[in-house]
């Protein structure tokens, strides 16, 4: 098969790159091995959350300009601030076309609440997590009801409340706890204990029980102005559902992500995939790349599948957006780190004991998180012999030079590098 652009990896970086390429009319295919990590994410996009010593970043662009952009190897340096801005605007526009609004707090970070009630800085969030109205409500010290479905095991509001009370942002707020239950569940074949967030999200999506759920919320939340629910109020039509629930209850509805699968992340995944398909992108799911052919610094083809069932895929340009260790984009041996598809030059310590910190929650995070493929300033990697591969670009967490957890910048790097690679390919092809 001959394409203009083959993208290996169907996550945030790969799909952002794919949408941009397909939109320009390039014949683009995304090859993904299993679902991406948006399914386990908060659904918010972090741009730059923490400084070197672990304190919260207030203005992410300013921080990038003063810090990250001074490090030669940092992906943000290679993208450049104007392109980072452009890529985020582009991403926002594309997911908004698919019905997901992403809000930001002008040039400032805002906070989102995690499943255990930790408060984390981020840059872009869905409107149920950040909006100017929500900001005002929290500022005014309003009463907030933290609710859960009775029996749902993947979320514990008590923990959320206990952690929120410790945070200065909520020092003026009155927090209350409550459970909502539904008569419907008495008639189901299954105990609510066994329900996952997706099971409940699908019940919400039917909209059949909304009036009853609204009544329950009003009962459990009493006179609270705002209500937080575990995030499962619909996947594809959550905006309508949230709007209806707010109208029926007269309360502000906030969402907190649950244990995986994360509905907030799932919405982003669906939106970017739909956008990619709409622009004419092709998608191969559940396939691994077994090998590749590189000759004289040019990728000639990649091969998927094993003997007899393999197919050779050719393209003018290739993008490696295969993720980090968890996604299989990087591999670790006993005392080696490698990139399995093209065997590219990788940056990382070969001494195993240097990979991690003994303290799991170390503020400095674990060194292995910053390991990855070394690239030049245009995101071209090189093979083991040091030769640059000219028609291959790398994007997202397969890249070296940054630590997504420590810096709180995973989403921003994925989107901006994916976008930048697409721009480069488009420019090359249109030459």
């Amino acid at each position, binding site marked *: *098969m*001959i394409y203009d652009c083959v993208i290996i990896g169907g996550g945030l970086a790969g799909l952002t790159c794919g949408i941009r390429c397909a939109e320009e009319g390039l014949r683009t295919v995304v090859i993904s091995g299993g*679902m991406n990590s948006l399914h386990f994410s908060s659904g918010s996009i972090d741009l730059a959350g923490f400084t070197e010593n672990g304190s919260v970043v207030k203005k992410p662009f300013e921080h990038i300009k003063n810090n990250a952009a001074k490090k030669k190897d940092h992906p943000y340096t290679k993208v450049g601030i104007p392109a980072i801005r452009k890529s985020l605007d582009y991403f926002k526009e594309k997911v908004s076309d698919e019905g997901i609004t992403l809000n930001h707090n002008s040039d400032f970070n805002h906070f989102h609440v995690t499943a255990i009630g930790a408060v984390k800085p981020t840059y872009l969030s869905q409107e149920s997590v950040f909006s100017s109205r929500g900001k005002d409500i929290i500022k005014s010290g309003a009463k907030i009801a933290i609710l859960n479905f009775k029996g749902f095991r993947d979320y514990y509001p008590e923990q959320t409340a206990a952690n929120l009370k410790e945070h200065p942002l909520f020092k003026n707020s009155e927090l209350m706890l409550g459970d909502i239950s539904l008569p419907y569940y008495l008639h189901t074949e*299954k105990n609510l204990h066994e329900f996952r967030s997706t099971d409940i999200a*699908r019940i919400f999506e039917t909209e059949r029980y909304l009036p009853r759920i609204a009544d329950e919320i009003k009962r459990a939340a009493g006179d609270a102005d705002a209500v937080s629910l575990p995030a499962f109020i619909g996947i594809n039509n959550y905006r309508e559902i949230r709007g209806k629930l707010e109208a029926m209850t007269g309360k502000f509805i906030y969402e907190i992500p649950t244990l995986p*699968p994360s509905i907030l992340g799932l919405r982003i995944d669906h939106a970017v995939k739909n956008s990619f398909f709409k622009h004419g992108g092709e998608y*191969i799911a*559940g396939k691994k790349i077994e090998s590749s052919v590189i000759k004289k610094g040019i990728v000639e083809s990649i091969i998927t599948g094993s003997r*007899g069932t393999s*197919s050779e895929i050719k393209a003018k340009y290739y993008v490696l957006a295969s993720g980090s260790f968890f996604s299989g984009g990087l591999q670790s041996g006993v005392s080696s780190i490698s990139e399995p598809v093209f065997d590219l030059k990788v940056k990382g310590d070969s001494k195993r004991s240097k990979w991690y910190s003994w303290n799991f929650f170390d503020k400095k995070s674990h060194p292995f998180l910053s390991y990855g493929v070394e690239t030049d300033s245009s995101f071209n990697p090189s093979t083991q012999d040091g030769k640059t591969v000219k028609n291959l670009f790398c994007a997202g967490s397969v890249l070296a030079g940054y630590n997504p957890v420590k810096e709180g910048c995973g989403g921003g790097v994925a989107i901006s590098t994916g976008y930048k690679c697409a721009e480069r390919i488009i420019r090359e092809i249109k030459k």
Partner: protein
Amino acid sequence: MIKLENISFDHCIKCTVCTIYCPVAQATHLFPGPKQSGPDAERLRIKNPELVDASLKYCTNCKRCEIACPSDVKIAEIIQNAKWKYVKVHWFRPRDFFMSRTDLVGGLATIFSGLTNFIINLKVMKVLMHLFLNIPYSRKFPAYQRGTFTGLYKKKFMQSQKVYEKRAVFYHGCFVNYNNHSLGEDLIKVMNALGYGVDLVDEKCCGVPLIANGYIEKAKKNAQYNIDSLGKTGDAVIVSTSSSCSFALMHEYPSFLELDNSSYIDRLDYITKFIYDEFTAGNIPQMKAVGIRAAYHSPCHLERMGGVIYTLGVLKMVPGLDLVVLNSECCGIAGTYGFKKENYEISQGVGQNLFRLIEKAEPEFVVTDCETCTMQIEMNTKYKVLHPVTLIAMALEEKNKGKK
């Protein structure tokens, strides 16, 4: 003893992504989902087979869980294995016996096809089947054709195929042989236009319905028969028009049935991949515009094989075809699954999303690669379903005799 190659369940990190994409778990809460039935329960089953629970039977083996899994766990295979390894099934199961012997039943039915089709659609027969065989009353059956495709081939085509130098073996499968001769004829027309003469060899049912109904030993016998037969075809290419047969011949034989199919594996392709490769190599026969608006449904097993892009690639090259690609949804029938009373409601429930998408697309025809998807879609929507090969055959100019 744990066999070392079967510990892919150990790679499961409990992310539950498979359960999001399981069509059965979406349709009923009775199925706890692939994660729980597969890798989770496998640990318990290995420890103590008494811990096997009854929910295994809800799995349709559509393999969407395996496509979704980020950790490469063979979830459907684990469930499929456990289903027949641990669950004690009664030896006397007349319905499952006949349902899984597609070639035996087909062979008999095609002798008296008129009578079979008449009887099978009688209301009284349907009531009897519903009551005594647990085959749902409202389920429509595919009509049987008079005689077999192999018979037709010998009479009508064998002679004309000799003029072609390049040879292709056609694994026709049961559906073409007993229910849909015209698809076989279309295939011959297309292969001829590409310059290939079509041969048939002795074959048995690929074994998919046997595996689904727990007749593993019988499936192995059939598989070995097919391997021997296809292995003796020299260097001819082998094509199949059924996505599920292809999947079995390529993947299920070596992995699930643990048989060596290396004698033909390099030469076998699902038909659209073969046609795509020919087209891209420049071997494109003359085609006229078909002037059809069609909606394409991608069958689960073709998705698992990664074959959907080839079907789409070929369809995009058919002139005058206005194609709507439907979102990937399972149709729910899953081979013999939807023909069983205990599964009927779930099977119909699974398909609802797809039926809605089809109605919304307002096509003239639906196009899909799989025979049982075809039955399910034709029963539940008002549209006729075409195979991609049929569409290409429609586009071929009559005078086009191809390159010999």
